[in-house]
């Protein structure tokens, strides 16, 4: 498999966005009415995102799970004067995250089908966003990574701000300001790291593989207190993105106001950029500090798990409920990452995929009800299962996968994380694992309670008596994630195999550094 496939996959959505732009200009100039060509935009966007998905499947053909270094690599000098390279590829950690992205975007496009206004801008934003997200996961150059990291921000800002609900402006600005606070501090850390590396080795480069190797090999030694500062700068950017408690407050606002399609992408992919960053930068580059900070990070993660679950329980709004459940579930992932064991980190990576799929699907389910009733209040519903049996089945499976029922994907991830955390050498890890376990129980409580109130029982509101069945489009948008939840729950090794070496490489770096420090 030629390595240019990564480049093609990354920029194919942008190409699609340009096509939509040109198509709209040309058709309007030919005198076609906006209504006439509106469906075309949707179809172009859908087809482009499907082709992108197929292209990204091509990664699997060329990928060798036994290697830990980046594969399918393209490495060209980009800005000679600064030592910035166009260096992209995939390794075991990023491979599945790219696939998750390309898998979710067609669903997001389908969920945005019902918008009647500003359709072509909507599709352009989604497609540019896709390029940004893939770019974050495939970049192996710090500068390039930062570039994509920031590019993701802008289309999401417009998606929330233009297509969102009542309070959209507040939510959109809050989202951007929060993220920018983190990312600009990360920029300082990147500059500092670049400078230190240049000083130590004489090579001006942003190549993160090389810098990480230099650190691991002891060629680049950073003073301990300076390491702390840099670790904090990187970590803050990622914690905000995850979001880890107490940096989570932008998330419920953004989710409540965002349109369904944007919510799917936000929860499904954008949050993973945070946990991905922790795994990619904080752990291998500053293993000692990571190990020392681990108890505190785990504490925050556990607080997030319990807090998110408790707040989710009392939410009257379904979408807010799912948003807070994200805070809780993302806490699990951070817990797994900072336990530093093979198992917990494998579980964390797996849980990133699971959360993307399950939560993405949950947002789709909520969106489907919202499209029918224009409300997301739980008490407005009841007995939906009587009118929409197919929908209710899918909603049920999705919720079950989210709460970690065995044979569905969530179980594998949560089980691995808890198992790994129990055997972790980090102080207090066992306590945190126990408290985290309570989170699993709590997630069953709020999800089942919601299902019970929305789907089952008698129809209490007469508006619900006329609910439409799922349309074909809705069925097609829900089926893939539900099927995936089952497949990933039954055959986890299919997925874990490819990422095993890359992930255990990271945990090995931390473990060895930690033991060296202990001596």
């Amino acid at each position, binding site marked *: 498999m030629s390595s240019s496939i990564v480049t093609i996959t990354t920029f194919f959505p942008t190409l699609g966005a340009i096509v939509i732009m040109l198509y709209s200009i040309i058709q309007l100039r030919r005198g076609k009415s906006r209504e006439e060509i509106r469906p075309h935009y949707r179809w172009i966007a859908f087809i482009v995102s499907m082709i992108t998905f197929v292209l990204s499947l091509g990664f699997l053909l060329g990928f060798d799970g036994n290697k830990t270094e980046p594969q399918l690599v393209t490495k060209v000098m980009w800005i000679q004067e600064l030592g910035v390279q166009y260096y992209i590829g995939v390794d075991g950690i990023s491979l599945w995250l790219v696939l998750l992205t390309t898998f979710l975007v067609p669903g997001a496009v389908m969920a945005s089908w019902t918008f009647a206004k500003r359709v072509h801008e909507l599709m352009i934003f989604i497609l540019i966003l896709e390029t940004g997200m893939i770019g974050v996961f495939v970049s192996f150059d710090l500068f390039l990574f930062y570039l994509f990291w920031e590019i993701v921000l802008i289309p999401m800002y417009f998606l929330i*701000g*233009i297509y969102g609900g009542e309070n959209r*402006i507040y939510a959109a600005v809050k989202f951007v300001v929060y993220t920018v606070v983190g990312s600009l501090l990360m920029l300082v850390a990147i500059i500092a790291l670049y400078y230190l590396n240049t000083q130590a080795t004489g090579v001006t480069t942003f190549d993160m593989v090389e810098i990480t190797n230099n650190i691991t090999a002891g060629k680049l030694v950073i003073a301990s207190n300076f390491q702390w500062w840099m670790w904090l700068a990187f970590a803050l950017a990622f914690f905000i993105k995850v979001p880890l408690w107490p940096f989570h407050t932008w998330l419920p606002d953004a989710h409540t106001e965002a349109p369904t399609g944007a919510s799917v992408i936000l929860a499904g992919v954008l949050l993973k950029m945070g946990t991905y960053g922790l795994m990619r930068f904080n752990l291998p580059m500053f293993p000692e500090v990571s190990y020392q900070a681990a108890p505190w990070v785990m504490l925050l993660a556990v607080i997030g798990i319990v807090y998110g679950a408790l707040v989710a329980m009392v939410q009257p709004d379904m979408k807010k409920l799912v948003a807070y459940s994200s805070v809780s579930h993302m806490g699990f992932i951070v817990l797994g990452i900072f336990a530093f064991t093979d198992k917990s980190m494998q579980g964390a990576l797996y849980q990133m995929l699971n959360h993307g799929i399950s939560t993405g699907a949950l947002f789709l389910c909520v969106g489907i009800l919202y499209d029918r009733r224009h409300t997301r209040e739980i008490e407005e519903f009841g007995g939906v299962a009587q009118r929409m049996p197919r929908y209710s089945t899918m909603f049920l499976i999705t919720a079950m996968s989210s709460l970690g029922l065995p044979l569905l994907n969530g179980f594998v991830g949560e089980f691995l994380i808890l198992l790994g955390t129990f055997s972790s050498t980090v102080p207090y890890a066992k306590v945190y694992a126990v408290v985290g376990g309570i989170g699993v129980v709590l997630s069953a409580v709020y999800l089942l309670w919601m299902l019970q109130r929305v789907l089952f029982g008698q129809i209490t509101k007469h508006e619900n008596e006329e609910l439409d069945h799922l349309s074909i489009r809705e069925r097609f948008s829900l089926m893939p994630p539900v099927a995936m939840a089952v497949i990933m729950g039954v055959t986890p090794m299919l997925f874990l195999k490819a990422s095993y070496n890359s992930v255990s490489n990271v945990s090995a770096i931390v473990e060895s550094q930690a033991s060296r420090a202990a001596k």
Partner: protein
Amino acid sequence: MQFSNLNLDYFSILPEIITAVAGVLLMLIDAFAKKGGRKIGPIFSIVSLVATGVAIVALWPRANSTSFAGMIVNDHLRLYFALVVVVCSIIATLMASQFLDDEALPPGEFYALMMFATTGMLMMASAGDLVMVFLGLETSSIATYVMAGYRRTDLRANESSLKYFLLGSFSAAFLLYGMALTYGATGTTNIEAIRQVLMAGKVIYPQMLLVGGAMMLVGFGFKIATAPFHLWTPDVYEGAPTLVTAILATGPKVAVFASFLRVFAEGFGAPNAPDVGGQLHDNWIQALAIMAAIGMTFGNIVALAQRNMKRMLAYSSIAHGGYTLIGFLTTEYAPVGFYMLTYALMSLGAFAIVQMLARQGDAKTEISDYAGIGFEVPNLSFALALFMLGMAGIPPTAGFMGKFYVFKSAWASSPNLRWLVIIAIVNSIISVYYYLYPIVVMFFRPQAEGFIKPRLTAMAQVALDITIIGTLYFGLFPNSALRILQQKAPAAQQIAIQK
């Protein structure tokens, strides 16, 4: 000055000659071809500006030479800044025809003034002598004073022009007095000779040199509008016709930075000099660091409260002056040069759009006037969004690249500058909030009533396209500009390395 060897090399001042002659010709054209002036003026101006650009490029092989007894320095600093100045003037001239038509103003003098201003700016870039610096500064200033009041019947423009003139003259006096004192202290007005005097420790009156340096710092501080010498900026920027504001905020600023670099980074750039030379160096570095910090913080915080687009951009330009000063403190010209290029492109673009949306007499310049226009005039509003994001420093725009390059250079240059980088980062975070505000208003708010789609002439469209493409191009491929900038470090650096 050695009169025995004047070295009258007219080729080396060809760019200045072209613009000066073009200015005179434009006045003649206006006098003799009254009717055609409106059409011929802009075309003739553009052609001569392009010729100026060609002349600058043609001077490249002769870089690192001096002529006119050291009055003119032809090095990479001069060539690069001259090129940026010419690009700024070309974009402004392209925008001018629409502005003059819309406002029904006489076209002739405007283009001539534009040419004289450009001449002055080019002189500032090529000046190797304090006298030349002052000549260039005054030539460009006097032209811009007139331009600021070009809408003669408009009270606001008159106020702006007068304010600009009074404070500008005031600052010029400071600068001139500083120059005189420096001359008294060192016995020369040649910048390179001053440096040699400092390095040799042969300053005649040390205290006088320090006072002279401080006064020149104040003078330059006024001209680049950095805090605490920025007070004239918001009023002048708001009152002047938007096009003139665009010119004031870019070209002259770029040129003043060129002179500023020449005098301070090169002339006074003697960190290891004995006695007063070293002291002067430490003093101005410290003073500028404080000015940079105050400028950024003050500009950004006050910009938060602005509801008028032009005032907001004025305060943002004060903040950008602060960021540029961080680059200045590395005493290399590359970060300053690159930042000025990116800033000029984005500012010109933003002001161009403000001008197009403003209607006659700058009636619509409140940000709330832009409510909901996002999908009415998508070309303008998405472009404005691009410039706002660029100024906020979000990739893939030139604004990000400029900031990144300044921060990176400052971080590597000296540990003392790292605090400034942190302050600048905090400021960038603050600035995101107000740069997002126009985007919020344009795209997320319902449409305001009575919005009329602005007319866009072909020339204005070209000007806008240049700024958009430039903003994206230097955001993704800064190589070309950086290659030119890194060709040679200023003399001070080179000598330091030789030691």
